[in-house]
């Protein structure tokens, strides 16, 4: 019998919470070591997923199927394909690093913090592996609570509560409409096939009239677009990012935002393919606005964290643009860009966190010339910045190049506009880097800053390893998603042929 790896991944952090609860709350180091150990075990448990994953098939692997509420068609149904595999690995890979990053950062209510972190981890894994709509919704919502607490309790004193509530309400707004859509879909499936189920894979097969797809796509899409976040639903993001503690920002950027894009890939597009084709112009244009707008706003930010937050809007715009091309390079690039963004932006937030720990400010104008007191820091910062810009040889380039390639096949205008985003990115990132790191030290407070400790270097080493690896040899990762992408594209292509006639019918009805 095969080990239920996915279930272990989901429930191990819960067991970990149990362990933390019995530990002494005053013993901060002990709590941190325990959490680190748990998250490392979690990472080790996730490794077999990577090595035993069969990249030849698009079918779900490591599947577990247990009845939960059989009379209602709800089951505990988990499994992964190439898309989820990469995101799970990203999650389990980043969490130990996040724990390391809390070493000096989090000093009060350590126990609660670690409990939230582990609960969040369990929820994130759950979202990426659920193949049952009900189960997915449960994880999707459950995850909100620890993140809300992370921002609200350990965030920046001034505006953390505002940011936490905004984050919660925005996400909740979208997901409640999604809940209605899930239920409508459930009853539609029941009526057409006679069996009632929340099984996602079965939902793929059912034919849904275009009129209904239209609204379903919008309802699901709103929930995911808020999470991504796409322009104009992005306003919660700068607040949440800026106010959250470093680790909160890292997880938020690296994993939580990916749930939105993952949601599009896993739920929205395959379930409502005709509507997806219909909405390509709308979502592509919103993505383009996100790319350019995010980049322009980034340029004007005075606060480092806010700058990175807005750059996320821009980067995620690329991902969405890539996914909505429905071409091999576009979708593959979109997926790899999700991982890239997780690594680069995660690293950037860690960097900001580290200088914040030293200087207790994030204002760009407060810094300058950090390369003199902190040379190692400057090098790492440089690599991460370049990766975020998309320098060839580093990971960002691969993702953006593939996305632009895919977009160019579909719409040259979109590709041209998106390409300006790359240029803008170079502007705001390099300008920021220059103001923080280069030149002479102008502010006396920066003169005696300590360079990175071994612990901090240990956090960045694995990140940079993967930043380079993806940049130099992306096939390791692209191969894993190839079969899933092909399958996805086949599904979308099939819908394309029927879409033309049906959208006609819809327009007729509207008149």
């Amino acid at each position, binding site marked *: 019998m095969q080990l239920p790896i996915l279930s272990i991944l989901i429930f191990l952090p819960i067991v970990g919470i149990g362990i933390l609860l019995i530990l002494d709350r005053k013993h901060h180091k002990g709590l941190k070591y325990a959490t680190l150990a748990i998250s490392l075990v979690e990472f080790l448990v996730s490794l077999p997923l990577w090595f035993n994953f069969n990249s030849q098939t698009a079918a779900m692997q490591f599947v577990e199927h247990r009845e939960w509420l059989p009379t209602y068609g709800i089951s505990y149904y988990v499994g992964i394909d190439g898309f989820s595999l990469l995101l799970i690995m990203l999650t389990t890979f980043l969490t130990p690093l996040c724990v390391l990053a809390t070493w000096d950062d989090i000093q009060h209510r350590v126990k609660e913090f670690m409990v939230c972190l582990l609960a969040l981890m369990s929820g994130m894994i759950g979202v990426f592996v659920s193949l049952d709509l009900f189960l997915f919704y*449960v994880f999707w919502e459950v995850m909100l609570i620890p993140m809300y607490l992370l921002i609200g309790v350990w965030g920046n004193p001034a505006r953390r509560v505002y940011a936490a509530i905004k984050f919660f309400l925005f996400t909740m707004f979208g997901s*409640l*409409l999604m809940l209605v859509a899930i239920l409508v879909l459930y009853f539609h499936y029941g009526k057409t096939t006679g069996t009632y189920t929340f099984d996602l894979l079965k939902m793929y097969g059912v034919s849904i009239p275009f009129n209904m797809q239209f609204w379903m796509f919008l309802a699901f899409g709103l929930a995911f677009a808020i999470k991504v976040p796409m322009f104009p639903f992005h306003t919660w993001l700068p607040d949440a990012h800026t106010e959250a503690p470093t680790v909160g920002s890292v997880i938020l950027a690296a994993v939580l935002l990916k749930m939105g894009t993952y949601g599009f890939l896993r739920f929205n597009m395959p379930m409502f393919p005709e509507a997806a084709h219909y909405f390509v112009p709308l979502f592509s244009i919103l993505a383009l606005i996100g790319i350019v707008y995010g980049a322009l706003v980034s340029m004007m930010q005075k606060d480092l964290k806010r700058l990175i937050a807005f750059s996320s809007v821009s980067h995620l715009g690329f991902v969405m643009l890539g996914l909505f091309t429905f071409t091999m390079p576009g979708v593959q690039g979109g997926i790899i860009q999700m991982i890239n963004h997780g690594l680069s932006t995660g690293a950037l937030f860690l960097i900001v966190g580290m200088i914040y720990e030293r200087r207790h400010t994030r204002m760009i104008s407060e810094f300058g010339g950090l390369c003199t007191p902190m040379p190692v820091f400057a090098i790492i910062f440089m690599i991460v910045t370049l990766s975020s810009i998309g320098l060839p040889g580093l990971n960002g380039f691969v993702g953006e190049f593939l996305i632009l390639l895919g977009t160019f096949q579909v719409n040259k205008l979109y590709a041209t506009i998106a390409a300006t985003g790359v240029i803008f990115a170079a502007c705001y990132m390099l300008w920021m880097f220059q103001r923080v790191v280069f030149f002479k030290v102008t502010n006396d407070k920066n003169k005696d800053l300590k360079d990175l400790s071994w612990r901090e270097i240990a956090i960045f080493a694995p990140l940079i390893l993967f930043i380079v690896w993806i940049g130099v040899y992306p096939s390791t990762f692209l191969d894993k998603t190839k079969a899933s992408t092909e399958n996805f594209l086949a599904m979308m292509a099939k819908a394309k042929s029927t879409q033309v006639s049906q959208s006609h019918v819809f327009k007729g009805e509207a008149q």
Partner: protein
Amino acid sequence: MTFTIPSFHLSSIGPWLTLTVTAILILVLDALSPKGRKVCFSWLALAGLAPAAFQTIGLWGSTGTDFARMVYIDDFANFFYLIFILGAALTVLISRQYLEDYGKNMGEYYALIIFATVGMMLMAAGSHLIMIFLGLEIMSIAVYVLAGLFREDLRSNEAALKYLILGSFSSAFLLFGMAMLYGASGGTLFLNDLPLRLGADPAMAPLVLLGVGLLIVGFGFKVAAAPFHMWTPDVYEGAPTSVTAFMAVAVKAAAFAAFARVFFLAFPAIKVDWNMVLWVLAVATMTIGNVAAISQTNIKRMLAYSSIAPAGYLLMAMVAANQLGAMSLLYYLLAYTLMNLGAFGVVILVGRKKDSYLNIYDYSGLGAAHPVLAASMALFMFALAGIPPTAGFVGKFYIFSAAIQAGYIWLAIIGVMNSLVSVFYYLRITVLMYMKPAEADLGPVVFSPALTAVVALTAAGVLAIGIFPGCLYNLAMNAVKIFPGL
């Protein structure tokens, strides 16, 4: 002229008898026991509720009527019996310490709680409108008195008087509606006979509608549906906190038991007519309850307003008028009993010393001072807001499913948007508990064993039936098989 006494089985109303005897026993003992000597009436009350619960379980699965068709014996009634007993038992547990603080730990309090419970059982099992009315009055009169338990307190007096006067009005409406139906049906008030008899004469249709409308007013008052909710905040705030909890949970459940039974059994034929009315009531109730709760700074008042909104969700299940809807009614009421009584348990724990700490800002910093207590409160708040994996989420999920299955998608959308509004004020409590420094000096919270047990049990229950809803779902689904019209 001869009277024949119809045959009957006392066992069919076993739980009622047990509880009635318990209540009378408490009253007698209270009168006999010398002043100043405390008899533990709360234990006596629990000792009566426990066998009643066992009797109910013993009745499980039996169907039929008894006492000349006046009483239904079915799982729908049994399910509600258990909700009432659970509600009463938890209320008794949270009351003792609270009443002792006020020097009001009197026998009649427990007797009244139990009498009210018996009234509720009559409502849930009555198969004749008069039976339901009798049950309603037994319950209401007991609760009127309970609301005014603190005789010396002006607010408690206000609560009792307000509740009594408005309640009497609503009873009159209910009775008037029954009279109309009696006329329209040509002389019967048996729920089973009503559908056929009401449809018999088309000329009577206006009278039927009038009767149904009046019933809606009467029941609407008891479940605190807008626009008949005006009494709720004042009464809930003025009444003793334990009584407020009892009213918000058990009284509402009883009213919905009768409401659902009457409408699903007797008026399925004119569903179109009452559906429209209930649709409007549901939307108004949810919206008014939630919007008004936002601005409350007294925790009791906030819970009072926020307990209006669930009535709206439950009305939504009534509107759906399908099996799923009826099932969700049972499920949500049970879940609501757990989470609301749990929340009130925390309110009493924190409030102590004669309700000194009822402002929501008193909760600030609770997360640091009493982590477990705060975590339970947070759990209840999230459950009331309907966030998984709690019972509150599953309950709402069923209700929304029912509405969507019946095709009321807009109603479901209004419902979820209302949930969002409610998230805001429930979240505020967690914000205060975890994200604000303590404002008031709470002093030591005394964890009396009974209250601690209530909070622990309800918290465990809220999680357990939220994560494993299957067993209860099946029970509730079987219980609502009695409605053939759905």
